[in-house]
């Protein structure tokens, strides 16, 4: 697909913004898109996505928060919104679906943001960065951009629970394969785990740590069994939980302490030859990965 000159609005959300815990996910995604010739414009003065947790206590309030972001994107005339964080992706999708399908919600929302009642609102699309890379950019463009093929590196993709559920329009909800595609395009060897869409424990890490550790232990074991040399994630919370659990599980698991757990966009950026500072990868991790790789320059 010809994506040159394609313009999207970009919604970072709290975690992938400049000071968020997932800022490296944000930095690396933008760097990768830049390398592919895609410019995204951050939604001006964006706010919270409406948060799935907040929706439980105040549904209308949550939709109003999400709707403000949608309205801003429409005002910028960039109705395709790129999102990285799966929780934001879910929340904004939910808001958009409700506005389009639920008359009561639509009436409430358009009272406040009239632009969402205009015909232009039918052009609003929530796009996850995985979806965009696989289905819009595509195999050829990504392969062409690769500078270092990650030849022979065994890479495990961990999706977490929210990317394809319940909004599964770009991949199978139970057994997605998009990340594996990207991994193989940049020369890596994807390894499978039946637990790749299992919950990482989420917020339970704060209140019931032991339960979360039990869950993540199984996830780690399933990847280690397949000989994974690197785990990539696509969610700031999954990433945080995996990192924390590895330390806390300690000797309970046989995971190499140096096994890199990074965002998939960081890995893609590395294969594109983007500098580690720009991608937010620590020197240790980069060295470890490069050590494992057979470096080959592409034609």
């Amino acid at each position: 697909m010809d994506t040159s000159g394609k313009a999207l609005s970009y919604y970072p959300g709290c975690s992938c913004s400049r000071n968020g815990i997932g800022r490296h996910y944000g930095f690396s995604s933008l760097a990768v898109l830049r390398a592919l010739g895609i410019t995204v414009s951050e939604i001006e003065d964006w706010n919270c996505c409406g948060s799935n947790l907040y929706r439980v206590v105040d549904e209308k309030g949550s939709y109003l928060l999400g709707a403000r972001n949608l309205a801003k994107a429409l005002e910028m005339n960039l109705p395709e919104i790129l999102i990285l964080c799966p929780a934001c992706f879910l929340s904004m999708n939910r808001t958009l679906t409700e506005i389009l399908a639920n008359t009561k919600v639509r009436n409430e929302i358009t009272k406040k943001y009239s632009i969402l009642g205009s015909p232009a609102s039918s052009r609003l699309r929530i796009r996850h960065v995985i979806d965009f890379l696989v289905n819009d950019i595509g195999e050829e463009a990504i392969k062409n951009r690769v500078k270092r093929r990650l030849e022979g590196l065994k890479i495990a993709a961990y999706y977490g629970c929210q990317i394809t559920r319940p909004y599964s329009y770009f991949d199978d909800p139970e057994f997605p394969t998009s990340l594996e595609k990207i991994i193989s395009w940049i020369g890596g060897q994807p390894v499978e785990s039946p637990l790749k869409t299992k919950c990482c424990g989420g917020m339970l890490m704060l209140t019931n740590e032991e339960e979360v550790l039990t869950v993540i232990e199984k996830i780690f074991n399933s990847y280690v069994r397949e000989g994974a040399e690197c785990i990539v994630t696509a969610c700031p919370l999954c990433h945080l939980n995996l990192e924390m659990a590895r330390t806390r599980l300690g000797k309970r698991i046989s995971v190499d302490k140096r096994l890199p757990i990074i965002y998939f966009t960081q890995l893609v950026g590395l294969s594109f030859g983007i500098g580690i500072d720009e991608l937010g990868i620590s020197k240790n991790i980069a060295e470890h990965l490069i050590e494992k790789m057979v470096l080959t320059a592409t034609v």
Partner: protein
Amino acid sequence: MDRKIGVYICHCGLNIASTVNVQKLTEFAQGLEGVVIARDYPYMCSDPGQELIKKDIKEYGLTNVVVASCSPTMHGPTFQKVCEEAGLNPYMFQMVNIREHVSWVTDDVEKATEKAKLLVAAAVNRVKFHEPLEKIHVPLTQSVLIVGGGITGIEAALKLANSGKKVYLVEREPSIGGRMAQLEKTFPTLDCASCILTPKMVDVASNPNITILAYSEIKEVSGYIGNYKVKVVKKPRYVDENKCIGCGLCATKCPSKVLDEFNMGLSYRKAIYIPFPQAVPRKYTIDRERCLYFTKNICRVCERFCPTKAINFEQKPEEIALEVGAVILATGYDVFDPSVIKRYGYGRYKNVYTGLEVERLTSASGPTNGRIILRDGRTPSTVVIIHCVGSRDENYHVYCSRVCCMYAMKLAHLIKERAPNSTVYELYIDIRAHGKGYEEFYRRVQEEGVIFIRGKAAEITESDNGKLIVTFEDTLLGKVQQIEADMVVLATALEPRKDARELARIFNIPVDKNGFFLERHPKLAPVSTVNRGVFVAGACQGPKDIPDSVAQGAAAAAEALALLSQGVVEAEPVIAEVNKDLCSGCRICISVCPYNATVFDRESKTASVQEVLCQGCGTCVASCPSGARTLRQRGFTDKQIIAEIEAILLKRFVPVEVLITET
């Protein structure tokens, strides 16, 4: 012609009388011009009601009868028969629906009565232009085509052949036998499937009235009830059926191995093969896709070794033309492909099987000679059977596949028998053991130690030690639980054949919302279709077990027999007719006819209607550029319809000038 019209208003108990003022309606009808007698009666369709009409026809010398009651599809034929028995042409009758169209759709007595008045007035106006019509009679070809050589088709073929009818049995695969040939034992009696099926297959082969056209498919059908012309394509076996003696030497020498579809891909066959040892006809077939001669232009070993020189690489598809009076479709079912349910991992985990695969494992002539062993040679110690895979599921098929509970229990029994130390779990939603002896079998399997858990499996994952972890909610305990299993069996749904819609199109019959062939009536005409010469039987009409399929096969044979033994077939005369003197031969009517009933007569260069094919839909009549004089619909002429409309629109209950005159 002076019309003497009788009008009969039915109360239908309180169905009509509670909403329509039938007394007022009768008085009104009595006042209409041409009406000599109007009566009301509680049940017009009852015996005394019918007698009333007959008596009046004779007494008053009625020329037309109007009955205002229920839907004409319900009792139209009843009252037509009444007229006929009293000596009146049945097409001089008109029915008015004041139940479904009036009393059932409103509570307002006044409005209902007014509407009923209008409809009765319209009908009275209409019948003045009715003309007597004669039923059409055509002879029947005394032979039957059966599509599908499974147990259903076999049963139908034998019944018809034994009654002296000629039968053509068309089967797509190289052998007849169908799905039942793949089964080891049958529930609930645990009969050996082959032992009860193969004698019937042999009977079919030896019956002089049956012609088996195996490895053949239907290409085209034309004609009409009693006189179908069918084109069948016989695919090339590359083996001369007349010369092949079925010795099998060719297969022993053939170097090319192919996954065996009869064994669900669990073993290998050769590129020249018979699907199973008891195949009928016992003639070998070359698999063109895998034959080394066809793929690489080498080998030809079979040709060298064949003692009767039966191999013929030059064989071409052969087209066979058949003429038959009736058709029975018995094309069976396909098995649901569970790999689309990603969370069960079929196709990813090697120890997740479908029911039919395990059926082949249990078969004495199957890939493991009847031993229950996994792909790596181990005997499973824990087996989980998951019910309703693809059935009763909004995401796949909403219907119940009817046989899965029972075959799942049969497999559990066989696994227990062949691997006595194994633990077998059945994860079910509800147990549906509805047939004779089925509930008893359910109890027997429970007593044999099979563990039944109510709950649908959520997902299957693989654990560190390579075992399958089945996660499910035990809905009786209300708890999420897990079982570590060596083998998981998916009781997959039955679904319509992939090409069922295509076949339905060829035979001009509808399919239901799931894609199964649609019967004419679910209870009263279960093997008939709207195409009167085409019958359906077995699982192509909906999921069925063997007893039901056999019963339907026999029922379809009886229906076909009842049709053929009439000698001639009677057809409705309410169809289109062409005035050849006025037809310009533009052929527009031919292009619009959905039944291929209008054809071009080359001799007279005009359109002509094949009476038996025409269903009287009226499409051609509407399309004719030279109007009603040229193409006219009997029973729905412009005069009749306009008279009816005028009575309603002009709200004049006196005869109106008919604006259009007809020749």
